[in-house]
Protein backbone atom coordinates (compact mmCIF):
# COMPACT_ATOMS: atom_id res chain seq x y z
CA UNK A 1 0.00 0.00 0.00
CA UNK A 2 1.25 3.42 -0.93
CA UNK A 3 0.96 4.81 2.56
CA UNK A 4 2.82 2.26 4.57
CA UNK A 5 6.25 3.18 3.31
CA UNK A 6 5.67 6.78 4.42
CA UNK A 7 3.79 6.04 7.63
CA UNK A 8 5.48 6.93 10.90
CA UNK A 9 4.46 7.07 14.51
CA UNK A 10 5.66 10.39 15.84
CA UNK A 11 4.72 11.95 19.18
CA UNK A 12 2.61 8.82 19.61
CA UNK A 13 0.50 9.77 16.58
CA UNK A 14 0.33 8.01 13.25
CA UNK A 15 1.25 10.24 10.34
CA UNK A 16 0.36 8.60 7.04
CA UNK A 17 2.81 10.93 5.28
CA UNK A 18 5.47 13.42 6.29
CA UNK A 19 3.87 16.56 4.80
CA UNK A 20 1.83 18.94 6.91
CA UNK A 21 0.43 22.33 5.97
CA UNK A 22 2.05 25.12 7.96
CA UNK A 23 0.23 27.30 10.42
CA UNK A 24 -1.25 30.47 8.97
CA UNK A 25 -1.07 29.26 5.41
CA UNK A 26 -4.01 26.86 5.41
CA UNK A 27 -6.48 28.73 7.58
CA UNK A 28 -8.57 26.20 9.44
CA UNK A 29 -8.44 23.70 6.61
CA UNK A 30 -11.87 24.29 5.17
CA UNK A 31 -10.71 27.07 2.84
CA UNK A 32 -8.46 24.62 1.02
CA UNK A 33 -10.86 21.68 1.06
CA UNK A 34 -11.69 21.97 -2.64
CA UNK A 35 -8.09 22.39 -3.74
CA UNK A 36 -6.05 20.09 -1.53
CA UNK A 37 -6.84 16.46 -0.64
CA UNK A 38 -6.37 17.34 3.01
CA UNK A 39 -7.17 13.95 4.45
CA UNK A 40 -4.47 12.33 2.36
CA UNK A 41 -1.72 14.45 3.89
CA UNK A 42 0.22 13.93 7.06
CA UNK A 43 -1.79 16.70 8.58
CA UNK A 44 -2.21 20.41 8.99
CA UNK A 45 -1.48 23.02 11.58
CA UNK A 46 -4.22 25.55 12.14
CA UNK A 47 -3.83 29.29 12.08
CA UNK A 48 -2.77 30.49 15.53
CA UNK A 49 -5.52 30.33 18.12
CA UNK A 50 -5.45 32.80 20.98
CA UNK A 51 -7.70 33.04 23.99
CA UNK A 52 -9.49 36.12 22.70
CA UNK A 53 -10.10 36.87 19.02
CA UNK A 54 -7.45 39.09 17.42
CA UNK A 55 -8.24 41.45 14.56
CA UNK A 56 -4.71 41.42 13.21
CA UNK A 57 -2.47 44.10 11.77
CA UNK A 58 -3.08 47.01 9.39
CA UNK A 59 -2.60 46.61 5.64
CA UNK A 60 -0.61 45.87 3.53
CA UNK A 61 -0.13 42.61 5.32
CA UNK A 62 1.73 40.85 2.53
CA UNK A 63 4.51 41.72 0.13
CA UNK A 64 6.87 39.83 -2.07
CA UNK A 65 10.61 39.81 -1.32
CA UNK A 66 13.48 38.37 -3.36
CA UNK A 67 12.75 34.64 -3.30
CA UNK A 68 10.16 34.94 -0.58
CA UNK A 69 7.49 37.03 1.05
CA UNK A 70 6.85 39.09 4.13
CA UNK A 71 3.67 38.67 6.08
CA UNK A 72 2.38 40.67 8.95
CA UNK A 73 -1.00 39.15 9.59
CA UNK A 74 -0.63 39.83 13.28
CA UNK A 75 -2.02 36.50 14.40
CA UNK A 76 -5.48 37.52 13.30
CA UNK A 77 -7.76 34.72 14.48
CA UNK A 78 -11.22 33.98 15.68
CA UNK A 79 -10.17 33.16 19.24
CA UNK A 80 -10.63 30.01 21.27
CA UNK A 81 -14.40 30.05 21.64
CA UNK A 82 -15.20 30.50 17.97
CA UNK A 83 -12.42 28.12 16.94
CA UNK A 84 -14.01 25.47 19.10
CA UNK A 85 -17.53 26.23 17.98
CA UNK A 86 -17.04 27.01 14.29
CA UNK A 87 -13.75 25.66 13.01
CA UNK A 88 -12.97 22.52 14.95
CA UNK A 89 -16.18 20.64 14.05
CA UNK A 90 -15.37 20.90 10.37
CA UNK A 91 -11.84 19.65 10.94
CA UNK A 92 -13.10 16.82 13.11
CA UNK A 93 -15.56 15.76 10.43
CA UNK A 94 -13.28 16.03 7.44
CA UNK A 95 -9.83 15.08 8.66
CA UNK A 96 -9.98 11.52 9.82
CA UNK A 97 -6.57 10.26 8.83
CA UNK A 98 -4.64 13.52 8.60
CA UNK A 99 -3.56 14.85 11.99
CA UNK A 100 -4.67 18.27 13.16
CA UNK A 101 -2.25 20.26 15.26
CA UNK A 102 -3.52 23.50 16.76
CA UNK A 103 -1.08 26.41 16.69
CA UNK A 104 -1.40 28.27 20.00
CA UNK A 105 -0.40 31.82 20.90
CA UNK A 106 -0.80 33.93 23.97
CA UNK A 107 0.40 37.07 25.66
CA UNK A 108 1.03 35.33 28.93
CA UNK A 109 1.59 31.84 30.26
CA UNK A 110 -1.98 31.82 31.46
CA UNK A 111 -3.18 32.62 27.95
CA UNK A 112 -1.29 29.74 26.41
CA UNK A 113 -2.44 27.40 29.15
CA UNK A 114 -6.03 28.51 28.80
CA UNK A 115 -6.13 27.82 25.07
CA UNK A 116 -4.63 24.37 25.51
CA UNK A 117 -6.87 23.42 28.41
CA UNK A 118 -9.83 24.88 26.55
CA UNK A 119 -9.19 22.44 23.71
CA UNK A 120 -7.96 19.45 25.61
CA UNK A 121 -11.34 17.85 26.05
CA UNK A 122 -12.19 18.30 22.40
CA UNK A 123 -11.90 15.51 19.90
CA UNK A 124 -10.23 16.31 16.61
CA UNK A 125 -7.17 17.96 18.09
CA UNK A 126 -4.19 15.66 17.77
CA UNK A 127 -1.74 17.97 19.48
CA UNK A 128 -0.53 21.50 19.96
CA UNK A 129 2.11 23.54 18.25
CA UNK A 130 3.07 26.31 20.62
CA UNK A 131 4.04 29.47 18.78
CA UNK A 132 6.65 31.34 20.77
CA UNK A 133 8.17 32.74 17.61
CA UNK A 134 5.86 35.15 15.83
CA UNK A 135 7.78 38.25 14.77
CA UNK A 136 4.63 40.14 13.81
CA UNK A 137 3.25 41.12 17.16
CA UNK A 138 4.70 42.97 20.11
CA UNK A 139 6.33 40.40 22.34
CA UNK A 140 5.63 37.58 19.87
CA UNK A 141 9.07 36.06 20.28
CA UNK A 142 9.39 36.84 23.97
CA UNK A 143 9.13 33.27 25.16
CA UNK A 144 11.11 32.02 22.23
CA UNK A 145 14.19 34.02 23.08
CA UNK A 146 14.32 33.78 26.88
CA UNK A 147 15.41 30.38 28.11
CA UNK A 148 13.96 30.76 31.56
CA UNK A 149 10.59 32.01 30.36
CA UNK A 150 10.48 29.31 27.71
CA UNK A 151 11.19 26.60 30.22
CA UNK A 152 8.43 27.82 32.52
CA UNK A 153 5.98 28.17 29.66
CA UNK A 154 6.56 24.66 28.38
CA UNK A 155 6.33 23.20 31.87
CA UNK A 156 3.15 25.16 32.49
CA UNK A 157 1.44 23.98 29.30
CA UNK A 158 2.69 20.45 29.91
CA UNK A 159 0.54 20.34 33.02
CA UNK A 160 -2.55 21.11 30.96
CA UNK A 161 -2.34 18.27 28.47
CA UNK A 162 -1.09 14.82 27.76
CA UNK A 163 -1.42 15.36 24.07
CA UNK A 164 1.68 15.95 21.97
CA UNK A 165 3.20 19.31 22.75
CA UNK A 166 5.38 20.74 20.01
CA UNK A 167 7.21 24.01 20.44
CA UNK A 168 7.72 26.13 17.34
CA UNK A 169 11.06 27.88 17.62
CA UNK A 170 12.26 31.17 16.23
CA UNK A 171 15.34 31.19 13.98
CA UNK A 172 16.32 34.46 15.54
CA UNK A 173 18.69 33.25 18.23
CA UNK A 174 22.44 32.76 18.32
CA UNK A 175 22.15 29.10 19.28
CA UNK A 176 18.93 27.23 18.66
CA UNK A 177 20.28 24.17 20.49
CA UNK A 178 19.88 25.91 23.83
CA UNK A 179 16.21 26.55 23.24
CA UNK A 180 15.68 23.10 21.80
CA UNK A 181 17.10 21.51 24.93
CA UNK A 182 15.13 23.78 27.20
CA UNK A 183 11.94 22.62 25.52
CA UNK A 184 12.88 18.97 25.69
CA UNK A 185 13.87 19.22 29.33
CA UNK A 186 10.63 20.99 30.19
CA UNK A 187 8.60 18.17 28.72
CA UNK A 188 7.96 19.04 25.07
CA UNK A 189 7.26 16.12 22.77
CA UNK A 190 8.74 17.75 19.72
CA UNK A 191 9.95 20.91 18.01
CA UNK A 192 8.98 22.79 14.90
CA UNK A 193 11.85 24.62 13.19
CA UNK A 194 11.47 27.32 11.98
CA UNK A 195 9.16 30.29 12.09
CA UNK A 196 9.82 33.39 9.97
CA UNK A 197 12.67 35.93 10.09
CA UNK A 198 11.81 39.54 10.86
CA UNK A 199 12.10 41.61 7.73
CA UNK A 200 11.14 44.92 6.19
CA UNK A 201 10.59 46.32 2.73
CA UNK A 202 10.54 50.00 1.88
CA UNK A 203 8.71 51.68 -0.97
CA UNK A 204 11.49 54.12 -1.83
CA UNK A 205 9.33 56.46 -3.91
CA UNK A 206 6.88 56.94 -1.07
CA UNK A 207 9.56 56.57 1.62
CA UNK A 208 7.28 54.33 3.60
CA UNK A 209 7.35 50.71 4.67
CA UNK A 210 5.40 48.51 2.26
CA UNK A 211 3.93 46.59 5.18
CA UNK A 212 1.32 48.45 7.21
CA UNK A 213 2.89 47.38 10.48
CA UNK A 214 6.36 48.38 9.19
CA UNK A 215 7.91 44.94 9.47
CA UNK A 216 6.83 41.34 9.19
CA UNK A 217 8.06 37.78 8.95
CA UNK A 218 10.01 36.52 5.95
CA UNK A 219 9.08 33.09 4.63
CA UNK A 220 9.46 31.18 1.38
CA UNK A 221 12.32 29.71 -0.65
CA UNK A 222 14.78 32.37 0.49
CA UNK A 223 14.87 30.96 4.02
CA UNK A 224 15.38 27.33 2.99
CA UNK A 225 19.11 27.10 3.81
CA UNK A 226 18.59 28.71 7.20
CA UNK A 227 15.76 26.34 8.02
CA UNK A 228 17.74 23.27 6.99
CA UNK A 229 20.68 24.43 9.08
CA UNK A 230 18.61 25.12 12.18
CA UNK A 231 16.73 21.84 11.83
CA UNK A 232 20.03 20.01 11.59
CA UNK A 233 21.37 21.80 14.67
CA UNK A 234 18.22 21.20 16.68
CA UNK A 235 18.08 17.55 15.64
CA UNK A 236 21.59 17.10 16.91
CA UNK A 237 20.73 18.65 20.24
CA UNK A 238 17.62 16.78 21.27
CA UNK A 239 16.09 13.34 20.92
CA UNK A 240 12.46 14.41 20.46
CA UNK A 241 11.19 14.45 16.86
CA UNK A 242 11.42 17.59 14.79
CA UNK A 243 9.14 19.12 12.19
CA UNK A 244 11.18 20.93 9.56
CA UNK A 245 9.75 24.16 8.14
CA UNK A 246 10.95 26.94 5.91
CA UNK A 247 10.97 27.52 2.18
CA UNK A 248 9.97 24.04 1.07
CA UNK A 249 8.53 23.98 -2.43
CA UNK A 250 9.86 20.74 -3.89
CA UNK A 251 10.59 17.15 -3.02
CA UNK A 252 14.32 17.90 -2.88
CA UNK A 253 13.72 20.76 -0.45
CA UNK A 254 11.65 18.52 1.81
CA UNK A 255 14.27 15.77 1.65
CA UNK A 256 16.94 18.20 2.78
CA UNK A 257 15.01 18.70 6.01
CA UNK A 258 14.38 15.01 6.41
CA UNK A 259 18.01 14.06 5.89
CA UNK A 260 18.96 16.83 8.32
CA UNK A 261 16.83 15.16 10.96
CA UNK A 262 13.21 16.23 10.54
CA UNK A 263 10.66 13.43 10.91
CA UNK A 264 7.93 15.56 9.39
CA UNK A 265 7.92 18.73 7.34
CA UNK A 266 5.53 21.62 6.84
CA UNK A 267 4.82 23.60 3.71
CA UNK A 268 3.58 27.17 3.96
CA UNK A 269 4.29 29.86 1.40
CA UNK A 270 4.56 27.36 -1.45
CA UNK A 271 0.86 26.52 -0.99
CA UNK A 272 0.07 29.99 -2.26
CA UNK A 273 2.28 29.36 -5.27
CA UNK A 274 0.61 26.05 -6.03
CA UNK A 275 -1.81 24.27 -3.71
CA UNK A 276 -0.88 20.99 -5.40
CA UNK A 277 2.59 21.15 -3.91
CA UNK A 278 1.70 19.25 -0.73
CA UNK A 279 0.47 16.19 -2.61
CA UNK A 280 3.30 16.47 -5.16
CA UNK A 281 5.96 16.50 -2.46
CA UNK A 282 4.37 13.56 -0.67
CA UNK A 283 4.47 11.57 -3.89
CA UNK A 284 8.01 12.70 -4.62
CA UNK A 285 9.25 11.59 -1.23
CA UNK A 286 7.66 8.21 -1.69
CA UNK A 287 9.39 7.81 -5.04
CA UNK A 288 12.69 8.82 -3.50
CA UNK A 289 12.39 6.27 -0.71
CA UNK A 290 11.75 3.56 -3.29
CA UNK A 291 14.48 4.70 -5.62
CA UNK A 292 16.99 4.72 -2.78
CA UNK A 293 15.83 1.22 -1.86
CA UNK A 294 15.19 2.18 1.74
CA UNK A 295 12.68 0.13 3.72
CA UNK A 296 10.70 3.21 4.63
CA UNK A 297 10.79 6.93 5.14
CA UNK A 298 11.94 6.61 8.73
CA UNK A 299 15.25 5.22 7.44
CA UNK A 300 15.93 8.53 5.75
CA UNK A 301 15.34 10.71 8.78
CA UNK A 302 18.62 12.18 9.92
CA UNK A 303 20.58 10.02 7.48
CA UNK A 304 22.84 12.86 6.40
CA UNK A 305 26.45 11.72 6.23
CA UNK A 306 29.15 14.06 7.32
CA UNK A 307 32.29 12.34 6.11
CA UNK A 308 33.45 13.36 2.68
CA UNK A 309 32.75 11.06 -0.22
Amino acid sequence: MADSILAQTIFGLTFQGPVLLASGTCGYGQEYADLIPLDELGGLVTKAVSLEPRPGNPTHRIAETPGGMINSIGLANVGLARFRAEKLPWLRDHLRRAQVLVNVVGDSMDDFAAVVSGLDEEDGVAGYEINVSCPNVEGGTLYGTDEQALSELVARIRRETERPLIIKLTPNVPDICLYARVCEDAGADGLSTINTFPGMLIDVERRRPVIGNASGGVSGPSILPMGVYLTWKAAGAVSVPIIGIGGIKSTADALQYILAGASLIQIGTALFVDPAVAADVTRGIEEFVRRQAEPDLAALVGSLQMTSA
Partner: protein
Amino acid sequence: MAEETWWLELDSPEIAQASQPGQFVMIGFGCGNTGAPLLPRPFSVGWRSDAGRIGLLVREFGSGTTRLSRLHRGEEVLLLGPLGQPFRFGVEQPVICVAGGVGLAPFLFLVGEARRAGVDVSLLYGERDARRVFDPAMIESLCGTEAEIWTEDGGAGRAGRVLEGLTPDPGVAVLGCGPTAMLHALFQFTRTHGMQLQVSVEEHMGCGVGTCQGCVVRGADGSWRKSCTEGPVFDAADLDWTR
Protein backbone atom coordinates in the same frame (compact mmCIF):
# COMPACT_ATOMS: atom_id res chain seq x y z
CA MET B 1 -3.11 48.56 -28.35
CA ALA B 2 -2.66 50.88 -25.39
CA GLU B 3 0.88 51.41 -24.21
CA GLU B 4 2.11 48.75 -21.80
CA THR B 5 -1.40 47.34 -21.59
CA TRP B 6 -2.38 44.25 -23.46
CA TRP B 7 -5.04 41.65 -23.87
CA LEU B 8 -4.20 38.11 -22.84
CA GLU B 9 -6.27 35.06 -23.68
CA LEU B 10 -5.93 31.78 -21.82
CA ASP B 11 -7.63 28.46 -22.34
CA SER B 12 -9.44 27.24 -19.27
CA PRO B 13 -12.87 25.79 -19.93
CA GLU B 14 -13.76 25.32 -16.25
CA ILE B 15 -12.95 28.89 -15.34
CA ALA B 16 -14.55 30.31 -18.44
CA GLN B 17 -17.70 28.43 -17.75
CA ALA B 18 -18.00 29.34 -14.08
CA SER B 19 -16.88 32.99 -14.13
CA GLN B 20 -19.14 35.88 -13.28
CA PRO B 21 -18.24 39.53 -13.88
CA GLY B 22 -16.21 40.93 -10.99
CA GLN B 23 -14.62 37.62 -10.13
CA PHE B 24 -10.91 37.13 -10.56
CA VAL B 25 -8.28 34.50 -11.20
CA MET B 26 -4.89 34.05 -9.56
CA ILE B 27 -2.15 33.58 -12.15
CA GLY B 28 1.07 32.01 -11.01
CA PHE B 29 4.14 30.34 -12.37
CA GLY B 30 4.36 27.35 -10.11
CA CYS B 31 6.88 25.94 -7.68
CA GLY B 32 9.42 25.28 -10.42
CA ASN B 33 9.74 28.97 -11.16
CA THR B 34 12.82 30.32 -9.38
CA GLY B 35 12.45 34.02 -10.18
CA ALA B 36 9.93 36.71 -9.40
CA PRO B 37 6.98 36.62 -9.15
CA LEU B 38 6.87 34.03 -6.40
CA LEU B 39 3.26 34.65 -5.44
CA PRO B 40 0.48 34.44 -7.97
CA ARG B 41 -1.22 37.71 -8.89
CA PRO B 42 -4.94 38.44 -9.08
CA PHE B 43 -6.52 39.52 -12.37
CA SER B 44 -10.16 40.25 -13.07
CA VAL B 45 -11.81 38.02 -15.60
CA GLY B 46 -12.21 40.38 -18.56
CA TRP B 47 -14.10 38.17 -20.94
CA ARG B 48 -14.93 34.54 -21.61
CA SER B 49 -15.83 32.59 -24.68
CA ASP B 50 -18.08 29.61 -25.14
CA ALA B 51 -15.03 27.84 -26.46
CA GLY B 52 -13.57 27.85 -22.96
CA ARG B 53 -11.23 30.76 -23.15
CA ILE B 54 -10.86 33.72 -20.79
CA GLY B 55 -9.52 37.15 -21.63
CA LEU B 56 -7.54 39.41 -19.30
CA LEU B 57 -6.59 43.03 -19.60
CA VAL B 58 -3.09 43.38 -18.20
CA ARG B 59 -1.11 46.54 -17.56
CA GLU B 60 2.62 46.20 -17.04
CA PHE B 61 3.64 47.30 -13.60
CA GLY B 62 6.11 45.11 -11.71
CA SER B 63 7.54 41.63 -11.77
CA GLY B 64 4.30 39.71 -12.21
CA THR B 65 2.92 41.66 -15.10
CA THR B 66 6.34 41.86 -16.71
CA ARG B 67 6.56 38.11 -16.57
CA LEU B 68 3.09 37.85 -18.11
CA SER B 69 4.16 40.15 -20.92
CA ARG B 70 6.81 37.59 -21.86
CA LEU B 71 4.41 34.67 -22.10
CA HIS B 72 4.71 32.99 -25.44
CA ARG B 73 1.96 31.20 -27.26
CA GLY B 74 1.39 27.75 -25.83
CA GLU B 75 3.17 28.41 -22.54
CA GLU B 76 1.31 27.22 -19.46
CA VAL B 77 0.56 29.19 -16.33
CA LEU B 78 -1.17 28.17 -13.14
CA LEU B 79 -4.70 29.45 -12.92
CA LEU B 80 -6.86 29.41 -9.83
CA GLY B 81 -10.42 30.58 -10.16
CA PRO B 82 -12.90 31.96 -10.62
CA LEU B 83 -12.50 33.51 -7.18
CA GLY B 84 -14.38 36.01 -5.07
CA GLN B 85 -17.73 37.73 -5.21
CA PRO B 86 -19.06 39.11 -8.48
CA PHE B 87 -20.83 42.41 -9.07
CA ARG B 88 -24.55 42.13 -8.44
CA PHE B 89 -26.98 43.66 -10.93
CA GLY B 90 -30.29 42.90 -12.57
CA VAL B 91 -32.78 43.99 -15.17
CA GLU B 92 -34.76 45.95 -12.57
CA GLN B 93 -32.18 48.75 -12.26
CA PRO B 94 -30.02 50.63 -14.76
CA VAL B 95 -26.29 50.17 -14.18
CA ILE B 96 -23.43 52.56 -14.77
CA CYS B 97 -19.91 51.13 -14.69
CA VAL B 98 -17.11 53.54 -13.83
CA ALA B 99 -13.64 52.30 -14.74
CA GLY B 100 -10.32 53.93 -13.98
CA GLY B 101 -7.32 52.62 -15.88
CA VAL B 102 -6.95 48.87 -15.92
CA GLY B 103 -10.03 48.78 -13.66
CA LEU B 104 -11.74 48.55 -17.02
CA ALA B 105 -11.11 44.79 -17.03
CA PRO B 106 -14.15 43.43 -15.13
CA PHE B 107 -16.50 45.74 -17.03
CA LEU B 108 -15.40 44.43 -20.40
CA PHE B 109 -16.93 41.18 -19.19
CA LEU B 110 -19.83 42.68 -17.28
CA VAL B 111 -21.21 45.04 -19.90
CA GLY B 112 -21.49 42.32 -22.51
CA GLU B 113 -23.13 39.85 -20.11
CA ALA B 114 -25.47 42.45 -18.68
CA ARG B 115 -26.59 43.63 -22.12
CA ARG B 116 -27.30 40.10 -23.21
CA ALA B 117 -29.38 39.70 -20.04
CA GLY B 118 -31.33 42.79 -20.99
CA VAL B 119 -29.88 45.13 -18.41
CA ASP B 120 -29.64 48.83 -19.18
CA VAL B 121 -25.90 49.29 -18.77
CA SER B 122 -23.38 51.95 -19.70
CA LEU B 123 -19.64 52.28 -19.28
CA LEU B 124 -17.52 55.30 -18.35
CA TYR B 125 -13.80 54.72 -18.78
CA GLY B 126 -11.08 57.14 -17.69
CA GLU B 127 -7.33 57.21 -18.28
CA ARG B 128 -4.60 59.73 -17.58
CA ASP B 129 -3.76 60.25 -21.23
CA ALA B 130 -4.58 58.98 -24.69
CA ARG B 131 -1.61 56.61 -24.92
CA ARG B 132 -3.04 54.54 -22.11
CA VAL B 133 -6.51 54.16 -23.56
CA PHE B 134 -7.39 50.60 -24.47
CA ASP B 135 -8.52 50.20 -28.09
CA PRO B 136 -12.10 51.61 -28.29
CA ALA B 137 -12.97 49.24 -31.13
CA MET B 138 -11.93 46.29 -29.00
CA ILE B 139 -13.99 47.61 -26.10
CA GLU B 140 -16.99 47.93 -28.37
CA SER B 141 -16.57 44.44 -29.74
CA LEU B 142 -16.27 42.93 -26.26
CA CYS B 143 -19.07 44.97 -24.72
CA GLY B 144 -21.38 45.27 -27.67
CA THR B 145 -21.57 49.00 -26.99
CA GLU B 146 -19.25 51.99 -26.90
CA ALA B 147 -17.58 53.22 -23.75
CA GLU B 148 -17.64 56.89 -22.86
CA ILE B 149 -13.94 57.64 -22.68
CA TRP B 150 -12.37 60.38 -20.58
CA THR B 151 -8.73 61.39 -20.45
CA GLU B 152 -7.31 63.92 -18.04
CA ASP B 153 -5.43 65.71 -20.79
CA GLY B 154 -8.23 65.40 -23.33
CA GLY B 155 -6.02 63.47 -25.71
CA ALA B 156 -8.79 60.95 -26.32
CA GLY B 157 -12.52 61.09 -25.67
CA ARG B 158 -13.62 63.89 -23.38
CA ALA B 159 -11.23 66.00 -21.33
CA GLY B 160 -11.43 65.56 -17.60
CA ARG B 161 -11.84 62.94 -14.94
CA VAL B 162 -14.18 60.07 -15.55
CA LEU B 163 -16.43 61.07 -12.65
CA GLU B 164 -17.48 64.15 -14.57
CA GLY B 165 -19.37 61.78 -16.83
CA LEU B 166 -21.62 60.66 -13.98
CA THR B 167 -25.01 62.33 -13.50
CA PRO B 168 -26.75 62.20 -10.14
CA ASP B 169 -29.59 59.70 -10.27
CA PRO B 170 -30.67 57.69 -7.22
CA GLY B 171 -32.36 55.15 -9.45
CA VAL B 172 -29.09 54.00 -10.96
CA ALA B 173 -26.67 51.43 -9.52
CA VAL B 174 -23.03 52.44 -9.85
CA LEU B 175 -20.25 49.87 -10.13
CA GLY B 176 -16.68 51.11 -9.73
CA CYS B 177 -13.22 49.66 -10.31
CA GLY B 178 -10.00 51.65 -10.43
CA PRO B 179 -7.44 53.48 -8.32
CA THR B 180 -8.22 54.07 -4.67
CA ALA B 181 -8.45 57.83 -5.15
CA MET B 182 -11.08 57.35 -7.83
CA LEU B 183 -13.05 54.94 -5.65
CA HIS B 184 -13.00 57.46 -2.82
CA ALA B 185 -14.31 60.19 -5.10
CA LEU B 186 -16.93 57.81 -6.41
CA PHE B 187 -18.02 57.01 -2.87
CA GLN B 188 -18.39 60.70 -2.02
CA PHE B 189 -20.37 61.36 -5.18
CA THR B 190 -22.74 58.45 -4.81
CA ARG B 191 -23.30 59.09 -1.13
CA THR B 192 -24.04 62.76 -1.78
CA HIS B 193 -26.55 61.82 -4.43
CA GLY B 194 -28.04 58.82 -2.70
CA MET B 195 -26.86 56.31 -5.29
CA GLN B 196 -26.02 52.67 -4.66
CA LEU B 197 -22.37 51.80 -5.21
CA GLN B 198 -20.46 48.54 -5.47
CA VAL B 199 -16.70 48.68 -5.80
CA SER B 200 -14.00 46.17 -6.66
CA VAL B 201 -11.05 46.75 -4.32
CA GLU B 202 -7.39 45.91 -4.69
CA GLU B 203 -5.18 44.57 -1.93
CA HIS B 204 -2.04 42.43 -1.97
CA MET B 205 -2.99 38.78 -1.96
CA GLY B 206 -1.32 35.60 -0.79
CA CYS B 207 -3.57 32.59 -1.19
CA GLY B 208 -6.57 34.06 -3.00
CA VAL B 209 -8.90 31.60 -1.28
CA GLY B 210 -9.36 32.91 2.25
CA THR B 211 -6.70 31.09 4.24
CA CYS B 212 -3.97 33.67 4.82
CA GLN B 213 -5.86 36.83 5.77
CA GLY B 214 -3.35 38.84 3.80
CA CYS B 215 -5.86 40.65 1.61
CA VAL B 216 -8.12 42.26 4.14
CA VAL B 217 -9.78 45.65 3.82
CA ARG B 218 -11.41 47.57 6.64
CA GLY B 219 -15.16 47.20 6.90
CA ALA B 220 -17.53 49.97 7.89
CA ASP B 221 -17.92 48.35 11.31
CA GLY B 222 -14.14 48.35 11.82
CA SER B 223 -13.77 44.64 11.19
CA TRP B 224 -11.42 43.25 8.56
CA ARG B 225 -12.97 41.75 5.45
CA LYS B 226 -11.09 39.35 3.19
CA SER B 227 -11.08 40.84 -0.26
CA CYS B 228 -10.43 37.48 -1.91
CA THR B 229 -13.52 35.71 -0.59
CA GLU B 230 -15.86 38.41 0.74
CA GLY B 231 -14.73 40.72 -2.10
CA PRO B 232 -13.19 41.90 -4.29
CA VAL B 233 -16.60 43.40 -4.96
CA PHE B 234 -18.16 45.03 -1.91
CA ASP B 235 -21.12 47.24 -1.31
CA ALA B 236 -19.40 50.55 -0.75
CA ALA B 237 -21.58 51.03 2.33
CA ASP B 238 -19.92 48.00 3.94
CA LEU B 239 -16.41 49.46 3.73
CA ASP B 240 -14.57 52.02 5.81
CA TRP B 241 -13.91 55.15 3.74
CA THR B 242 -12.54 57.29 6.55
CA ARG B 243 -8.86 56.73 5.76
